[in-house]
């Protein structure tokens, strides 16, 4: 069973809830190697996005994602705003006109979203950013589909890869973003953006666990 508008909204709702729950956690991670605002920013952004969605009579799934992307761009600020804004705007581009998403649709949308983040931020794997969670998650998802895994299974593997990628940022020395100013001192801390990326993908796996 493909994803409906309702399922998409349920995911975004869950993202908002999870980011609210983890607001202080993300902020603490950011305090260690950044500027202590990532949790507050993401929470503010997703609350604003949810407010806009409430009144949105969406013609398609693409416009839901686009609305979220625009809201994040205009309310998150910092690095997270343009990056997650781009992520959701790209999801929106790929899902424009669609009323449902197949597992393959999701692969394409996720690919565009992750590539958008990379294009916007110029980070590579190993730079200790959200890309270290997003890119492995994308690869794992695609590989799972290729292996013939179910949608649910593919989402779960994708979230697990994001988690692994997130943890892998701990020993890394940051090359991009605010943590890079710390040089060697950035090692030993988990990247906040990789963490929020994991939370978002994990939310997808959980929300859509009963889709297939």
């Amino acid at each position, binding site marked *: 069973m493909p994803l409906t508008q309702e399922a998409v909204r349920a995911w975004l709702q869950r993202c908002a809830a999870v980011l609210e729950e983890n607001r202080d956690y993300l*902020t603490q991670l950011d*305090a*260690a*190697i*950044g*500027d*202590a*605002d990532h949790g*507050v*920013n993401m929470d*503010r952004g997703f609350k604003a996005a949810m407010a806009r969605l409430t009144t949105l009579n969406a013609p398609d799934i693409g416009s839901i994602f686009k609305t979220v992307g625009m809201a994040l*761009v*205009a*309310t*998150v*600020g*910092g*690095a*997270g*705003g*343009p*990056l997650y*804004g781009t992520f959701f705007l790209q999801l929106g581009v790929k899902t424009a006109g669609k009323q449902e998403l197949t597992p393959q649709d999701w692969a394409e949308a996720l690919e565009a979203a992750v590539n958008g983040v990379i294009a*916007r*931020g110029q980070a590579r794997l190993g730079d200790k950013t959200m890309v270290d969670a997003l890119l492995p998650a994308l690869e794992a998802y695609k590989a799972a589909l290729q292996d013939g895994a179910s949608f649910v299974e593919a989402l779960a593997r994708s979230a697990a890869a994001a988690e692994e990628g997130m943890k892998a940022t701990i020993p890394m020395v940051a*090359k*991009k*973003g*605010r943590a*890079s*100013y*710390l*040089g060697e*001192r950035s090692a030993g801390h988990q990247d906040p953006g990789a963490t929020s990326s994991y939370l978002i993908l994990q939310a997808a796996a959980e929300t859509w666990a009963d889709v297939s």
Partner: protein
Amino acid sequence: MKKLINNPLNVVPESLEGMARAHPGLIKVHFDPNFVYRADAPREGKVAVISGGGSGHEPMHGGFVGYGMLDAACPGAVFTSPTPDQMYEAAKVVHGGAGILMIVKNYAGDVMNFDMAADLLRGEGFQVESVLIADDVAVESSLYSQGRRGTGTTVLAEKILGAAAEQGYDLQRLAELGRRVAENGRCMGMALTSCTVPHVGKPTFELGEEEMEIGIGIHGEPGRYREPLKPADEIVERLMEPILSDLPFRSGDRVICMVNSMGGTPLIELYIVYRKVAQICEERGIQIMRNLIGPYITSLEMAGTSITLLRTDDEMLTLWDHPVKTPALRWGM
């Protein structure tokens, strides 16, 4: 957390409202999206100079809006880059038909948000140039990293570029001058105490009673290293050495020097810092032609200081002396 605030979430809008009430002849404040702009904007035929960044660095940037400096400033949430719609709307309000110069500090967030705004504006036919400030020698510079943070040189660049725009420089010439300023400025800072972000409610980092943090940024980011508290003169040496050797500054160079308070360090201490900076420059044959001493680019109430040196030439000095009339910097009128 001990602050003169009401709701931590309203710090930025309430402070902006206070600014608007305090300086009606100089500036206006637009809310949602938030930006501070010259009361007499737009200035026809003048390049509009705009900047912005997270709040918490006051008087930068809003305090530098006015004749001879910025046309508009876009304040984000505390320590959070502003969003593209702020720069986009501000630029449309202050644009005088001669293009827009954006002065951007080199933080991933600032760069991306200003880039998005520039894209939007260019898409509507506006001419946009930007100048990136990346002057913080505490950060090792490398092609493969984000590069350096933008700190103290931003203030000096805003003054000089604002004067040049006022004098009729066109957009290209202004952008070239801006890059020259950016290339010739170096800064380094240190903290005696952390600051507390209002909505976080506790200090961003913890420093012991006998510790200091050298090489901090302006967002309560931890610095390059932590060490036991030292006398002011030794601290100044620790900040000056990387600054001087990086450009490098040489005998005969003429500089503008800023000794900046991070917010909680009072003037009596800044002058003790300046005394040693001036001694070091004197010994090395570096001439301090102009100086700024006070809180200009702060990190909320953090105690500490940053030192900025900008290697200048006659053109920059003339522009420095050009009249300026803003809430935080004023001379010649």
